[in-house]
């Protein structure tokens, strides 16, 4: 059952110059992406920094206004992109966010109890002792203790803070959680704990996740399907297993080759694809396929024509001119 359908989401930031703030161009942070999220599913959204994945996530929650596109949400099929600020209110409860930096995402002047209780106070879902009980219940469900409610965020470690952030996201019993790189600021050992917690909570509360990350190895563990973004566009989207075993886009292949293998001898034998150069400036993207200046399989057509995202197998979409002929290396 479909929970969210995103169609052609775009977010352009104007570049303004001079005293009259004349618009001289646009940074196409998100340039027409479409995907869907099924109920109970985790969709991984992967790409390098600057590819627009965080912007896409924030647009979905209407934390920044999208330039265009539609988000069809829930059984009632409401287009969230068209709602006014007030009409959006009831839907905000159903989509929540987990932030990347656990040191910046918690108000340092609120106690943990206040932070976790704030969503319920704002939306008037609980009050009095019921609110207190619910706060304790939420903290316990993310592995914190009831006596932590009166402490301040600075007294907690990064992993514990991220658990507080997760408890806050769960407070309104959302259906969809946009997790914006929830583990990239944490130690590897703590990353695993948080990933396991997220997986456990997904089962317990029937959550769906949009899991944003820059690291395929993190996404691999938790995602059912993965969308790979490059310079504001989705270049490949397919179920996680297929993506890892037989990537269809050269960029995906390069990302996968950067994931370390647990077996050192296999790791040594494997060919390592090193991408040349950096992500191009999104205000002046290359012609044709955005990836062609860094792609080792690029031909003339790649420089001229922009490949569209097309279906190549059941549940597998890719935006590459040569996806049929290339035999790319997976894990």
């Amino acid at each position, binding site marked *: 059952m479909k929970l969210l359908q995103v169609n052609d989401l775009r977010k352009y930031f104007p570049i303004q110059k001079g005293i009259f703030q004349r618009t001289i161009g646009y940074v196409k942070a998100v340039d027409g992406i479409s995907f869907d999220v099924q109920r109970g599913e985790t969709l991984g959204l992967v790409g390098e920094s600057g590819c627009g994945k965080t912007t896409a996530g*924030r647009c979905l*929650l209407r*934390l920044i206004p999208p330039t265009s596109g539609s988000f069809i949400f829930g059984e009632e099929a409401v287009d969230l992109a068209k709602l006014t600020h007030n009409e*959006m*209110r009831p839907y*905000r*409860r159903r989509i*929540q*966010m987990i*932030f*990347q*930096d656990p040191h*910046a*995402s*918690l*108000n*340092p*002047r*609120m*106690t943990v109890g206040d932070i976790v209780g*704030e*969503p319920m106070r*704002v*939306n008037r879902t609980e009050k009095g002792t019921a609110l207190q009980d619910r706060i304790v219940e939420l903290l316990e469900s993310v592995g914190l203790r009831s*006596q932590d409610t*009166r*402490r*301040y965020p*600075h*007294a907690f470690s990064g992993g514990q803070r991220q658990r507080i*952030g997760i408890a*806050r996201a769960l*407070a*309104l019993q959302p259906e969809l959680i946009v997790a914006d790189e929830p583990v990239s600021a944490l130690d590897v050992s703590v990353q695993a704990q948080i990933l396991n917690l997220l997986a456990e909570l997904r089962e317990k509360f029937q959550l769906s996740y949009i899991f944003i990350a820059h690291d395929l190895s993190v996404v691999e563990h938790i995602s059912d399907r993965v969308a790979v973004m490059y310079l504001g566009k989705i270049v490949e989207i397919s179920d996680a297993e297929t993506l890892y075993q037989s990537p269809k886009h050269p960029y995906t292949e390069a990302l996968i080759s950067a994931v370390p293998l647990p077996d050192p001898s296999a790791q040594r034998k494997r060919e390592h694809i090193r991408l040349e150069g950096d992500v191009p400036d999104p205000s002046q993207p290359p012609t044709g396929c955005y990836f062609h200046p860094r792609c080792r399989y690029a031909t003339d057509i790649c420089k001229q024509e922009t490949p569209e995202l097309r279906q190549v197998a059941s549940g597998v979409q890719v935006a590459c001119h040569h996806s049929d002929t290339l035999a790319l290396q997976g894990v």
Partner: protein
Amino acid sequence: MNNATPLTSQQYVLRKLLRHRSATIGASIILFFVIVAIFAPLIATHDPRHANIVERLKGWSDTHYLGTDGVGRDIFSRIVYGTRISLKVGLIAMSFSIGFGTFFGAIAGYYGGKLDNLIMRVMDMMLAMPSILLAMVIVTILGQSLTNAIIAVSIVYIPQYARILRAAVLKVRELDYVVAARGIGASNGRILLTTVLPNCIAPLIVQATLGIGAAILDAAGLSFLGLGAEIGEPEWGAMLNENRKFIRRVPLAVTAPGIAIFLIVLGFNLLGDALRDALDPQID
């Protein structure tokens, strides 16, 4: 930290404050002046406004602890009553400037755009003039009285608070926890009051303490120039002005009000400094 019963935030701040040495000293000085102000009629030995021309320009003695001024009024009693005026001026002026400054600064910083530009350009215009000059202009327009001096000082200090608060709000409003508050559906007013402003308070407190001192100084300055307290009122600044002609004959008549002004300003500064540390959750 792992006590069986964790402290509430207020208890925590209070405990940190009590352990802070400048807090104790500053608070003691302020408390001393507050007690003096409250019990002024009991402490004063003479009527502060009563002139006794026979006793004029006396040095310190058993009857006049700090001597008498040019018309024979008891300086000790005038200083005691002057505490009331200075505390009143400092607190009222500061409350007004903080209130309006916070309001304008928070609105300008949070909403930005044209409103921000309008508010801050008006503030810049006010800041372009020296504060005592602006205060003199305002008093001249309103007429000479202590109340008008307080109003003038309040208005003059609004831009400082507005600027400090705007800068703090600009920094805080982009942080993830503000985005998070928006994400849970909190209204702009609520975000501003519960999330943004509490995190902007530290720089405001520092400025407020310096500001209470500055307000007391400026009001004394206005009185010194004859634009504040009415003639004959036991106001420290006015006393400095009245007695400066006699500095060689009775130095105490000038130094005593000066020292009083110095001490009260010092007290507020020390306390404010300590409050800043106590309110910062990162300093233990």
